[in-house]
């Protein structure tokens, strides 16, 4: 593991755009998974994405509602996670070293692509 860097979570990480190695947008950093090292200092172990991660941070009725629906659909309370080891650069955007298809964090996108968008002719052409 390379030398650790110190970050202000809110300033540098939370709500930043995550992009993959091809420049594709993955998600926002909806929440972070933290762990404590041997010295008792917290460090980031994963980026959490999706409504189950964002809901509690947005708060209010809308936030709780978002979380509940997502949990009901997915069958679990745990939000999808991107292991922080995948992160190669932290700047204006959080760059990952892998491609979004190799992770499994976009179940809604994948489902919609499969069931709806792919079925419409022309879905392979950008304009």
């Amino acid at each position: 593991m390379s030398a650790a860097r110190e970050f202000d979570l809110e300033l540098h990480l939370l709500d930043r755009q995550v992009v993959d190695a091809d420049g594709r947008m993955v998600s926002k950093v909806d929440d972070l998974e933290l762990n404590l090292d041997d010295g008792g200092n917290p460090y980031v172990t994963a980026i959490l994405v999706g409504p189950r991660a964002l809901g509690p941070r947005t708060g209010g009725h809308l936030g709780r509602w978002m979380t509940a629906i997502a949990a009901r659909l997915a069958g679990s309370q745990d939000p999808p996670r991107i292991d922080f080891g995948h992160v190669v650069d932290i700047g204006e955007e959080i760059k990952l070293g892998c491609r979004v298809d190799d992770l499994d964090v976009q179940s809604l996108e994948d489902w919609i692509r499969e069931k709806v968008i792919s079925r419409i002719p022309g879905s392979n052409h950008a304009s």
Partner: protein
Amino acid sequence: MKRIFGVALGILTAIGGFVDIGDLVTNALVGSRFGLSLVWATLVGVVGICLYAEMSGRVAAITGRGTFDLVRERLGPRVGMANLVASFLVTLLTFAAEVGGVALALELATSVNYLLIVPIVGVAIWFVIWRVKFSVLENTFGLLGLVLIVFGVALWKLNPDWGDLFRQISRPHKPTDESLPVYFYYAIALFGAAMTPYEVFFFSSGGVEEKWTKKDIITERVNVFVGFPLGGLLSVAIAAVAALVLLPANIQVDTIGQVGLPVAVAAGKIALAIAILGFVAATFGAALETGLSCGYTVAQYYGWQWGKFVRPKEASRFHLVVLMALIAAVGTVLTTIDPVKITEYSVVFSAVALPLTYFPILVIANDPDYMGTETNGRISNFLASIFLVIIVVASVAAIPLMLYTKAGQ
């Protein structure tokens, strides 16, 4: 040479794309009831939209990212969510109004009932969003909308007393048969019609779609500062011909058909046919913009892949949101609520939502972390701050005035 062509195209597109159903209806309505005594509100609105469009375009060119992407990052998920809900709902309402507007304009051309035309319009809108290239989409409807200059021609043919017109514009006074609350209600409506929130989302997202960079800032500025005011002049022309033809005849505009009558009276059938083409182009173009903006706002907040610049398969959620917004818009019109009424409400609610949508742009455009050396200058900030006050006043007064005047009756 190519550069000049590009700039000219941009300006013409900005002029033609400025007017939408809100401008058409509100300016004609106000002209027919208040003459030119509320033109000041349109002019203030035009200055405002120029300021904020320039800012949001500059933000897109420097950061390469869309408005809502940055709003959530800079102001947090809570404020971002409030912003999103308000912006999305207002944009969706405007989308429904534009879809209705296209159908009504086509009804005038064909005398086929507009409810039968609406589903076809819906399919056409979706098809264009799905298959037509972004720049082609923008340029085509922008240039076609330019034919609304026919309103300027009609104004000239009516041979008005120009001195009297300028006097009415420069010395705003409330007509004796209208009350003060109604006067200010319509000032707010005109303001909301000129400073539509979706314009900001579309302009900045469009900048990303077309891959603007720092070099494009000058072009973008020229488009905005030349194109939008000229577009605003078109709005004033629409109000002026209504004031000259409809006001003396005691006609108060509440249908699109009445909006075109002054053109026919002044310049005949061919001019009216051109005006109808302009109506269709302006409203269809605005429908595309509002539809795409519904997708841009949601996708950018959540960090989904968005945009027409990638294959639809790679931005499935974005395209689904646009499709669902379209279905909702078409559905709203099919409930047979008068699209002109939808339009009147959409401009007032636009005014209500303005502070939420513009304040974040102001914050980001001033942030050197995002903008580097291209933050707002002192003049921009001075003007933008004045406008923030105007926007907040309009927003706060809008709903009470709407209730008190029963939506301007």
